[in-house]
């Protein structure tokens, strides 16, 4: 924890999500903590089932009733989020924090024009009249790079391409000038040339003071869109730090594995190395460190003792018993005495 900064905009401390199911309780998110300062950017990275989306939904109060959210502290701009009543949530979500998802088509109403849906934000939250709201919608569409916005106002969502729909979603999310935007896989469904446009747009907004949480499985997208990164595996944080420090010298074997498995379209090609095995089933996690069955440096201790997230260097945290070894890149004795295959 850095003591030099002012109170963070978003504080997530000891977040747990439990879901009751027929086969018992599963815990897709376990003891997750992070903070985000005003105007800063953070990426939550992980593969499917890592709990990264669940974490953001819990923060936004958007999980269904079957999910139990517990947290030591869940705070936005100093105000406690846990136990917030529905009307307060709605107020907060529209005006202070906003979210965009991977699939913009499912988040837009197909029966209403895009212009109506954007203008509705202003009418509902600001109480503006029809023509003023429409004018604001046109300006907003122009700002997010939708060509010919006055004409496109009357179009329905299906008449927009995927990239343009995502711009509409961003326009709606930014309409009320929120202080925090949570973007869950915002470019995953888009072509690369369109993805580059959307990432540029998010970056520009971030420079203008918007705090940004990007959730992604793509380490390349993260490199382009966030200053800090937290890495999730099987529901827990395994590493956190500045992107510019974590990427060149990861402090957790999983992060190192992800980086080595990511193909590079540019720069030095290098050879891609897969991570052995499969991500675990969260209802039947391995004992000890959840990553140990796939870990190239796992040892006896890893199979019995669960590593805690701890500070391993200034501004760096890792949940690995041998984080220092990973960080310094000292040669490791591969799998000595560990029961893995």
């Amino acid at each position, binding site marked *: 924890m850095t003591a030099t900064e002012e109170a963070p905009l978003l504080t997530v401390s000891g977040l747990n999500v439990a879901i009751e199911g027929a086969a018992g309780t599963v815990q897709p998110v376990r003891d997750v903590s992070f903070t985000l300062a005003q105007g800063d950017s953070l990426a939550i990275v992980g593969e499917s089932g890592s709990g990264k989306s669940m974490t953001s939904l819990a923060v936004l109060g958007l999980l269904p009733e079957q999910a139990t959210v517990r947290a030591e502290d869940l705070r936005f701009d100093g105000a406690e989020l846990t136990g917030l009543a529905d009307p307060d949530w709605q107020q907060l979500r529209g005006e202070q924090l906003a979210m965009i998802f991977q699939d913009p088509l499912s988040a837009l109403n197909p029966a209403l024009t895009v212009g109506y849906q954007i203008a509705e934000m202003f009418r509902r939250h600001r109480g503006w009249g029809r023509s003023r709201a429409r004018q604001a919608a046109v300006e907003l569409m122009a700002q997010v790079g939708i060509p010919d916005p006055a004409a496109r106002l009357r179009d329905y969502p299906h008449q927009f391409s995927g990239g343009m729909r995502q711009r509409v979603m961003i326009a709606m999310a930014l309409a009320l000038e929120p202080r925090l935007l949570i973007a869950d896989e915002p470019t995953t469904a888009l072509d690369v040339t*369109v993805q*580059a446009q959307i990432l540029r747009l998010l970056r520009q907004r971030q420079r203008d003071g918007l705090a940004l949480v990007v959730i992604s499985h793509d380490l*390349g997208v993260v490199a382009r869109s966030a200053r800090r990164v937290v890495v999730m595996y099987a529901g827990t944080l395994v590493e956190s730090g500045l992107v*510019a420090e974590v990427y060149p010298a990861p402090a957790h074997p999983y992060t190192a594995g992800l*980086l080595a498995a*990511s*193909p590079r*379209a540019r720069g030095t090609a290098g*050879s891609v190395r897969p991570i052995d095995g499969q*991500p675990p089933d969260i209802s039947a996690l391995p004992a000890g460190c959840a990553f140990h069955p796939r870990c190239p440096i796992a040892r006896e201790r890893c199979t019995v003792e669960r590593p805690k997230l701890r500070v391993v260097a200034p501004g760096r945290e890792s949940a690995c018993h041998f984080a220092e070894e990973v960080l310094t890149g000292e040669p490791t004795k591969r799998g000595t005495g560990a029961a893995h295959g």
Partner: protein
Amino acid sequence: MNQRSEEPVLRTADLVAGYQVRRGLLGRRAEVAAVAGVNLTVREGETVCLVGESGCGKSTLARSVVGLLRPRSGTVLVAGKDTAKLDRAGRLELRKNVQMVFQDPFASLNPRMTAGELIAEGWRVHPGLVAESDRQAEVARLLAQVGLNPKHAGRYPHQFSGGQRQRISIARALAVRPRLIICDEAVSALDVSIQAQILALLAQLQEELGIAYLFITHDLGVVRQIADRVAVMHLGQIVETGTAEEIYQQPRHPYTQALLSAAPSVDDWTDDYTEGIVLQGDTPSPADPPSGCRFRTRCWLAEPRCATETPELAERGGPHLVACHFARPTVPT
């Protein structure tokens, strides 16, 4: 290295293929030439990557190669034989020679069949391949070959993870001993750690069996890992083609340059990362492509000539083929 036969496994010549759409209230039919004159060759034992964004026609091309779609004009030759002129036996042979692996193994594997049944299914159509009495052993061998536990032949698709399901799809394709496997976004839906496993498996199988791959993808990072040769497709046409080395080191078409520049890389956190080329606007609709060069509406080099004169795919003084009036012999690096 495998010995190369004279005939390439796959050759398309001026292939035009597409589909019909209804337009407007009257439902007037319009032809969309999703593939508009493509020449593509895949030789034995090599991996050719077809790269392009959505709507470029790469999947339509795949469908016309396997015979799921009849070409409007031009030819598709598989192992030297024109696929439009095959008799029944010839069509069976085509299906044996060319197999497909799709993006979503959940959708392409019948959930009611076990892994073993899925793998053995092709032998119902091609009974001569494996004797009845050897089939169980052959299923076990194929499962092991793709890195799955042979004891899991009795499990159903939902009992496997996404990566394992894709391994089943590959085993199923291998079962009929094809010469070419078309992988249509075969690793796009997989997590990055698993994606790398599947790419390694495909490379290893190629080494062992000499299979050729036509690998269709939008992911330029993946292409770089596996391609011998690359064809970049844009709105139904190949705009640049060459060896992987040529395409990645010296991209000559502005669209290829834009694609490479746009692809996110894990190195993009560095201070020397610059945005590079960010194209404006959307890809035009394949139903109504621009005149002349189809990329000109988004191209920063476009001149009036590009609207009237279609650039042919040609060497243009350089090492590989490119379809741009302004392509230079080489790009200084």
